[in-house]
């Protein structure tokens, strides 16, 4: 245990926590926007798998990381169109539609990977970019300001999402259709359009999350996410539907994952116990849900399809 509390190991753990938090944060912020509009999207994991695969395949073919990020985003948008049609146009039950999207993404990414790639080959990873001046701060700079551009983007999207929701007309519309769609409708806000756009933004961010996941790892394999997308959905409850709270949750998850990895590497967690240690994020989520369930206020119209009468 003593090995863990050395400065260099702690800095490395913090850096890895922030890196690992990135896909959680991107996906959770997107899910927050969707849920604030009253739409639960449980398909995040499937969307992430598909976008991760296509991003990976793009780098494999072209070597172009930014094209790969763009592809991830577009795949997310395309899945958003599908999910929007299902849940908003057709008013399908959201929970199970999301599971359908998940199963579809899981199967299709697996199928395409086996058919188009076969054996996992490593690809280039997102390079770390030093922030001028800030990255020179001892230790702190190394942990916070020598990360990749998608990590910076994810954390910049926290205030951006908060501002979008609290200070813009569109954000107000999102919140109003999530709380009381009938009232919003009577005031002339299009519930359908608002929810559809919120879904598109959310899925695009899930697409970015998939790209971030695979481009930080530099490799793809079937079921790469291993439930990460579902934890991202839970983080929205964890963060009480607020971007800053969601960021706190994502960082906590990054930290738990990074610590487990570091403790395994240092031998603090024996090999035989590493599977038990892997239970930590999901167990933590369940405990958090138990503690928070009655204390946080969900958008009143969450999971309720809107139909005009």
């Amino acid at each position, binding site marked *: 245990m003593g090995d863990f509390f050395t400065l260099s190991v702690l800095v490395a753990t913090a850096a890895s926590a922030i890196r690992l938090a990135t896909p959680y944060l991107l996906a959770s912020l997107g899910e927050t926007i969707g849920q604030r509009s009253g739409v639960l999207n449980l398909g995040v994991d499937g969307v992430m798998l598909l976008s991760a695969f296509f991003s990976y395949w793009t780098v494999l073919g072209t070597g172009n990381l930014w094209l790969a990020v763009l592809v991830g985003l577009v795949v997310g948008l395309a899945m958003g169109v599908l999910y929007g049609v299902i849940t908003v146009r057709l008013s399908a039950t959201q929970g*199970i539609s999301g599971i*359908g999207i998940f199963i579809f993404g899981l199967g299709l990414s*697996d199928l395409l990977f086996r*058919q188009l790639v076969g054996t996992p080959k490593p690809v280039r990873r997102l390079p770390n970019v030093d922030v001028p001046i800030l990255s020179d701060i001892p230790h702190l700079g190394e942990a916070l300001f020598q990360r990749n551009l998608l990590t910076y983007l994810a954390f910049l999207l926290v205030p951006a999402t908060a501002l979008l929701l609290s200070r813009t007309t569109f954000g107000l519309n999102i919140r109003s259709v999530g709380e009381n769609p009938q009232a919003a409708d009577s005031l002339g806000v299009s519930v359908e359009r608002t929810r559809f756009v919120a879904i598109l933004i959310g899925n695009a961010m899930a697409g970015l999350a998939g790209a971030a996941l695979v481009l930080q790892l530099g490799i793809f394999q079937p079921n790469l996410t291993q439930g990460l997308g*579902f934890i991202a959905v839970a983080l929205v409850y964890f963060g009480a539907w607020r971007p800053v709270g969601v960021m706190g949750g994502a960082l906590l998850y990054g930290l738990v994952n990074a610590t487990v990895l570091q403790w395994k590497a240092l031998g603090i967690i024996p090999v035989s116990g590493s599977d038990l240690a892997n239970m930590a994020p999901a167990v933590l989520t*369940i405990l958090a849900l138990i503690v928070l369930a009655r204390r946080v206020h969900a958008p009143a119209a969450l999971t309720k399809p809107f139909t005009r009468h």
Partner: protein
Amino acid sequence: MLKAVLGALVPLLAAVVAFAFGAIMLLALGASPLEGLNAMLDGAFGSGSRLAATAVKATPLILVGAGITIAFRTSVINIGGESQIIAGALLSTVVALTLPDLPAFILVPLVLLAGAAGGAVLGAIPGALKAYASVNEILSTIMLNLVMVQFMNFLLRGPLIDPFELEAGTRIPQTQRLSDNAALPTLIDGTRLHIGVPVAIIAAVAAYLILWRTPTGFRLRAVGHSPEAARAAGISVKRNVTLAMALSGSLAGIAGSILVFGSEGQRMVTDGSAAGFTGSAGFNGIVAALFGGLHPLWTIPSAMLFGALLTGATQLQRVLQVPAALAVALNGIVVIFVISSTPVRGWLQRSLADSGLFSRSSNRVEAD
């Protein structure tokens, strides 16, 4: 009447859409859709032993699917089939390891009961959390899936690992060959058809009888239809939500036990993922239940169909080198399509007044 026709068309249309998607995928992958269909039909129904394999594949889907109908009819969304299957398998494995010398006519029922008990616990936990602590059951069941995979890996790589795997250093996460007295007896020699298949069918019939022919089922469906009204009628919503999840989980747990003791290796084995042991039956069972209109009896033929899709996909991989994951993608399409269609939405939010199979026309609820 029109609604009844529409309702019957939904699964058909879903199948057509999934089929069209499959054909497009095959074309995109450079294979002929007709040859693909041929290979799938041949793989699923081509011989007696293949038919038996299809029925065996369908068995966990029937069980999980029947359980799903109980939960969904009580308005509890059970996504935790994977964890409940694993729990049932682990508990029944431990029973077989502890009492290997019991005679088969005791040990076989005992491992199935152990499976039911293990699954029931993993169902009751999220049920009780929903009932007594307002924890969203979709999230808690998904999290328990993630927890149980790791727990399974821990046991199969550690305390329960086959001693031979340690000796040989190969360390495949699997148990030793379990007692032959626990093996599910084969029904037809030369095929894999074992008693798990009739057990699953009986369980699905039991689920139907419980839901529509007992006071317990009446209470479950009353809670599913309107918790407020049920409460006003003196029905405990909390207890029934927990009970629905426990029943649902117990059926999945039996599936877990059957996956172990109906397997050729007569052992529990994984590849480190949940699907490596369950074959994703926890999710595919949901697909079968939805496709069967959330009716336990209709879940049986529906599960057979998806069992055929799975064995067919294996053959597709063998003959045309198209990855069997195609079947998973097709399952996703079926869910999306079935859930998007109004009549099925009606089924989900349906009144408690219907009596199921024998008055199916009353099931076509007026869409909201």
